[in-house]
């Protein structure tokens, strides 16, 4: 486990607290943080994998103590500076210093509905051929880490590393986050839903017949 966001299977978090469907946000600044993040994303300076990595790269103690949207806004500020859209001086002073060439890419209110409806598919043409088919047994690589960038982004949870499961379905060819998060190209690969037995994953499984399914890229897997 390399980053604090990777918490599947962790002990000690206490009960889950259900809440009414009518509750959308818990403070006025939450929807504002969500909207600022989405609107800033339209500037086109980063992709979804880059923005996830920015949240994961928060210091572990900050990741643990920050509220959900606090992580978003902190990562957004970090990304805007890293990509040159804002300066540290602007953050520190709380005001703009000079104009930005990026203003031409600002998301206008009139385009919001269309942008949200359009989405951003992760499937791509090309890439390597699928080497697994449903029913194949596969083993997940031993390290739940980015294999190219030390401490880099990956979507392989630590609790699955080294385990063997069965291919349930092939989702087509998807952008590889481990590459796309770091500006190294989309490197699309076949993506699979892989089923694991709870009895294999956990020392003390709740129920022998239960399963966990995760979506894993071909390069995360070898034939078992």
């Amino acid at each position: 486990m390399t980053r604090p966001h990777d918490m599947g299977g962790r002990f000690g978090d206490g009960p889950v607290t259900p809440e009414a469907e009518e509750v959308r946000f818990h403070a006025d600044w939450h929807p504002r943080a969500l909207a600022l993040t989405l609107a800033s994303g339209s500037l086109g300076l980063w992709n979804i994998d880059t923005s996830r990595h920015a949240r994961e790269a928060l210091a572990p103690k900050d990741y643990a103590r920050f509220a959900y949207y606090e992580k978003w806004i902190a990562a957004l500020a970090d990304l805007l500076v890293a990509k040159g859209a804002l300066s540290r001086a602007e953050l520190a002073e709380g005001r703009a210093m000079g104009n930005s060439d990026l203003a031409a890419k600002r998301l206008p209110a009139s385009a919001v509905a269309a942008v949200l409806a359009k989405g951003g598919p992760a499937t791509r043409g090309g890439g390597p051929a699928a080497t697994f088919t449903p029913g194949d047994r596969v083993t997940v690589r031993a390290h739940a880490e980015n294999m190219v960038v030390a401490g880099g982004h990956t979507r392989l949870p630590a609790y699955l590393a080294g385990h063997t499961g069965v291919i349930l379905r092939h989702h087509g060819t998807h952008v590889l986050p481990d590459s796309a998060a770091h500006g190294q190209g989309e490197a699309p690969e076949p993506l699979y839903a892989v089923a694991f037995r709870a009895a294999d994953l956990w020392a003390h499984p709740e129920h022998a017949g239960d399963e966990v399914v995760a979506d894993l890229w071909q390069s995360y897997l070898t034939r078992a």
Partner: protein
Amino acid sequence: MGGIYARMRAGASGPLGDWTIVRHAAHDPAMPHDHHDHPHSLLPSDPALRVKALETILTQKGLVDPAALDEIIDTYENRIGPKNGAHVVARAWSDAAFRAALLADADPVLAEMGYYGRQGEHMVVVENTGDVHNMVVCTLCSCYPWPLLGIPPGWYKSDAYRARAVREPRKVLSEFGVTLPQDTSVRVWDSTAEVRYLVLPQRPAGTDGMDEAALMDLVTRDSMIGCGLAVAP
């Protein structure tokens, strides 16, 4: 960007208490790095003030249109929510051919109903039966089918749910008041890629003859995440 920029900032947690000197190197990294001086720490530490400050700077800079923020908020506060998913479920309960098409390849079916968009580009619908109970989590962040369910509830994004749903789903279900028979197996879907999952809950008994609109009222948000059951009429 030359030289060392140092500034006193207020309200941050640091070894010196409320006032800490923040320094950074001459070059901004291409990506946020593992430095102790992340740029975000230059903003006010109170999250409400931090959001306000960032919105102010981005607006002044011409990078964000406050009216666009209002529009985004209105979309997820008032327009896109679990009613969309309930519509899909009620139709699947009412129409066998629709249900079969939805389970076989959800994307074209949902697109035709207008339920496509951000965070719902690649949908898979999984069906609960007497043999299998499906439940959805994102252990790594908070992936969720926005066009069908809206913004995820607080508990879905909580550490407790993300940590525990994969290891002890039955205990988590019990916290929602759900107890499954021992001969029903649980299948937990961890949304680790851009595929989003919607659970098709079991149709409650005693609903024969109910039309789609009446059935929709029985479909709860939690039942479409797999943390609840559809309610009996």
